[in-house]
């Protein structure tokens, strides 16, 4: 089956794409909505301008739609993107990286239902620590590009998801009830390498953009 990946460049959508490929689905395109709202309810925003480099490394076309990031208008942009993917690449399904968010998952389900295509959520309800562990087991190289929850501060930006990282978020989840895989928007990530990539990506430059003490984004420039 030909599928489009609802792609943000972060760990969840990339791991969902990896599972689709591993299960013999044909990844026909990546679909991204670029929200100009850093508080977007639907879309992961940090470093999204760099996803074209990821698409290039995977070797599939990328469909991008820009949105001002107003709550329900974001959905119109997403539906437009998915419709384009259906028309241009004959996709029969969309794959998402939704884990816990019913808000996000149900809205994508409704769009796919209207367009009469399948909606795949292979990470749905997955244990978040298990998800982080699976990234390491499968050779994912992921950095943190956004933080938005106490007690995560600027020192977390640029960190790799490794064993030490998993140990620390496990402790923080017990102490502060944050979601260990950042499912509540506590942090955002960017994938530099994984089995889908034909070449590893390297960060050439980066800068921190601050929206508040505990809400910061690392804008990365890829070589």
């Amino acid at each position, binding site marked *: 089956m030909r599928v489009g990946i609802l792609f943000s460049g972060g760990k969840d959508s990339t791991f969902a794409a990896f599972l689709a490929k591993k*299960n013999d*689905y044909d990844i026909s395109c990546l679909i991204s909505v670029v929200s100009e709202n850093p508080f977007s309810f639907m879309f992961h925003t940090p470093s999204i301008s760099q996803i074209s480099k990821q698409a290039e490394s995977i070797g599939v076309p990328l469909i991008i739609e820009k949105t001002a990031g107003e709550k329900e208008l974001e959905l119109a942009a997403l539906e437009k993107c998915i419709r384009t993917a259906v028309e241009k690449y004959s996709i029969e399904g969309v794959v998402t990286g939704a884990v816990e968010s019913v808000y996000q998952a*149900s809205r994508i389900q409704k769009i796919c*239902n209207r367009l009469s295509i*399948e*909606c795949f959520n292979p990470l*749905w*309800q*997955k244990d978040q620590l298990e998800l982080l562990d699976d990234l390491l087991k499968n050779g994912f190289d992921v950095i943190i590009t956004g933080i938005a929850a106490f007690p995560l501060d600027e020192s977390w930006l640029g960190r790799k998801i490794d064993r030490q990282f998993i140990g620390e978020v496990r402790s923080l989840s017990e102490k502060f009830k944050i979601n260990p895989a950042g499912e509540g928007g506590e942090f955002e990530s960017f994938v530099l390498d994984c089995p889908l990539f034909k070449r590893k990506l390297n960060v050439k430059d980066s800068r921190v953009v601050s929206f508040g003490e505990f809400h910061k984004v690392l804008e990365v420039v890829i070589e």
Partner: protein
Amino acid sequence: MILLVNTCAEKLHYFEFVRPVEDILRKNGFSFVTKHYSEISENDLSLADKVIICGTSLKDNQFLKDIKKFSWLRDFEKPVLGICAGMQLIGVLFGGKLKKKTEIGFFEEVFDRSFLGLSGKVQVYHLHNNFVDFSALDDFEVFSKGQIPQAVKHKKKSIFGVLFHPEVRQKSLISEFAGL
């Protein structure tokens, strides 16, 4: 041992509709084996203490086209829990008619009597385009109020059905059934 029945036509849907139920059983210490409905043998049914029939995607109705593969359900005497697609299968096999109704996302349902640990107002996750009108079936009692039946039980057998997806926000319902 619990037999977990996968109703998905697409293998990527296993991760969304079957694996979350497996995770709940595993975390609560229940042993299980998962089989796709097309592979279930008489031996599987005789070895199982209970059966859980999982749901599938909005677009997938292949399980209804293959309903003969579920004919064993009519005479099965052990506890069965049908989730969404599983509930629809139970309804059709016991003479109910499939009707159209799309519900996607969180909905508040009211359980007027205790149903596998649920009672009163409960927020549940729906993902379906069809339902079976169990109120027209004499063998079943409906435990939910509202426009369409969301939770049912056979009057004489331990056959349960839920139209919502308990693996999302009512994980305890699955362990409650597994512990019967």
